């Protein structure tokens, strides 16, 4: 049997070599489909790596409280996207921060409350800037590196702010504006710190720190009149107490909200869940598009195989006459289709990574290579080869030997 397989393999190779240009073009069709799948998988892989890294940077002792229940189904995420302002529905309040802070084993609590407002100084005005309201604890929970100055403290939080790198350039035309003042809602604040420029803007807070102004959450609430808390970040005293602490948070908040359980307490990998779910949907959509191009490539394989079968009708007749069975002819042509598509697959993997590398030059997404991706694409090419090779191979195997022998090229 093994000898027969080897024979079929050699035969298929010969036939592919004989029609070099044709085979190459067919492979190219598959390669383009595979390359786009590789590109998409590589991009999503690198993005989810970025997200994971963000969480691991923060540390494993992080608990996140988010409004509303976990968004894991496609419809809730799409609902989220289509509703104009998602955090308007938030039922978390700053008072919850205080009640969480009182829980045992909680080391630090920081709300993430985002508002938009106009910031100005003598020279410049920045309209609808991102204003992040939080507490001085923020910096102990998240590894935000400051380029200059220091973060808010309990003593000075009433009249100081920390700003992002880009915002600093926009307002003060310098990256070191520590000590200078800016106006927000007619109140004057002193800039006491500038955040280090961040290259990857993806984080689990969904805040663009480069363009953000960070101030005390209570003060922001006073100025804005009302404030929606997007998220509450909690740092547990140690990793072991994560589950008990998160359970206590759940019960505390439920009782303080009179039984309203419309919030989620997550820790560990679950923190990135909404972002990952979103990413999965987008990459799924892209994969469908890539899949379409793969189908087109597969049709190319089928087309060429049909031509090959028609051209070799006489040969099929001879082979059947000297003893080839249905299965022999079937596997001969299946092998040819499989080799074409697998060759296209390898070409596509190479092409896809070249593309991924080119993309990484202009974006922060480094090419992401894993054996899962390689195995997936290889399996895909095999499946494509089988699906689009089976019909021509069946056609060949079903040929009547007598009719085929009369057939001349």
């Amino acid at each position, binding site marked *: *049997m093994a*000898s*027969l397989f*080897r*024979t079929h393999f050699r035969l298929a190779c*010969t*036939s592919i070599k*004989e029609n070099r240009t044709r085979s190459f073009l067919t492979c190219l069709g598959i390669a383009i489909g595979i390359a786009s799948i590789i590109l998409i998988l590589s991009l999503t892989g690198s993005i989810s790596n970025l997200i994971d890294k963000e969480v691991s940077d923060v540390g494993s002792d992080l608990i996140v409280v988010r409004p509303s229940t976990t968004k894991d189904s496609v419809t809730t995420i799409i609902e989220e996207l289509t509703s104009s302002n998602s955090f308007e529905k938030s039922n978390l309040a700053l008072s919850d921060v205080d009640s969480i802070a009182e829980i045992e084993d909680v080391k630090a609590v920081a709300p993430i409350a985002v508002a938009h407002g106009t910031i100005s100084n003598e020279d410049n005005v920045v309209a609808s800037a991102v204003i992040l309201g939080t507490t001085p604890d923020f910096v102990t929970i998240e590894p935000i590196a400051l380029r200059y100055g220091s973060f808010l403290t309990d003593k000075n939080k009433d009249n100081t702010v920390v700003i992002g790198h880009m915002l600093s350039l926009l307002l003060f035309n310098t990256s070191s504006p520590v000590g200078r003042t800016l106006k927000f809602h007619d109140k004057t604040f002193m800039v006491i710190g500038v955040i280090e420029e961040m290259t990857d803007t993806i984080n689990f807070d969904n805040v663009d720190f480069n363009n953000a102004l960070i101030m005390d959450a209570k003060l922001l609430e006073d100025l804005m009149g009302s404030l929606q808390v997007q998220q509450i970040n909690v740092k547990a005293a140690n990793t072991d107490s994560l589950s008990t602490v998160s359970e206590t948070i759940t019960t505390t908040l439920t009782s303080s909200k009179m039984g309203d359980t419309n919030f989620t307490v997550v820790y560990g990998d679950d923190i990135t869940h909404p972002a990952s779910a979103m990413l999965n949907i987008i990459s799924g959509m892209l994969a469908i598009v890539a899949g379409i191009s793969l189908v087109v490539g597969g049709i190319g394989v089928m087309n060429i195989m049909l031509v090959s079968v028609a051209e070799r009708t*006489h*040969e099929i*007749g*001879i*082979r*059947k*006459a*000297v*003893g*080839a*069975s*249905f*299965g*022999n002819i079937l596997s001969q042509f299946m092998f040819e289709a499989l080799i074409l598509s697998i060759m296209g697959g390898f070409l596509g993997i190479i092409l896809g990574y070249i593309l991924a590398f080119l993309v990484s030059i202009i974006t922060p997404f480094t090419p992401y290579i894993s054996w899962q991706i390689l195995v997936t694409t290889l399996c895909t090419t095999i499946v494509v080869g089988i699906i689009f090779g089976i019909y021509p191979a069946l056609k060949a195997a079903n040929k009547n*030997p*007598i009719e085929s*022998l009369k057939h001349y090229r």
Partner: protein
Amino acid sequence: MSENIIELKKLTKRYGYGDTESFALKDFDLTIKRGEFIMIMGPSGCGKTTLLNIIGLLDRATSGEYSLNGENVANISSRRKARLRAKKIGFIFQNFNLIQDLSVLENVALPLVYINQPRTVRLKNASDALDRFHLQEKEYYLPHQLSGGQQQRAAIARAIVSDPEIILADEPTGNLDSRASVAVMEELKSIHEEGNTIIMVTHNPSLTVYATRVINMLDGQIDTDIKTVSDQNLPQKIEVKRGKKRKRKTSNRRKK
């Protein structure tokens, strides 16, 4: 004495239905003994080729019974039919039917592919078969680089490479000049003398001298059936003999 290798009973092959109905074979009865060299003659369209195709398991009769080595062919799977074609039956065609993309050697080795012989054994046996027909130096030629007679000899080598019991030849000399025809017929004769059963279709009456039995067909039925050699005098197929012969060949080579 020889046993019956092929038995055909009331074999009918019909083409078309209703008004277009025609019979290539009609209630055809024939018994072929091991070791016979049968020539089938007759006008075009009398069903000679259809008969060969049915005997060669390439075609299926509309009705009637066909037993090969005592086994009713109607009951065997197409997979086993293919194996029987590879092992027991050798085909020789008028237009040689060699695969143009393969070398002569690979063409001859083709039936061995389908009985799962390893590549080295295949090529060795094919080379030996070609050697017998004086074509060994042409092993790596492509079929179109050979003359018609050489191509037909290669085709005969292919037909006997798997040591079959039945050789079916459909006008093997039809495309050859008289000199090449004689060479081909001499080869067939020597194959027959080793005890093989040969069934050959021909239009050339002068070739009947090689046959042990001449059948004239007309409109899908036997017209005349003449045996020139009695059943007792048919050559016996002896496996040991062939084995010895092959051994002798290899030992000869070793001596060289």
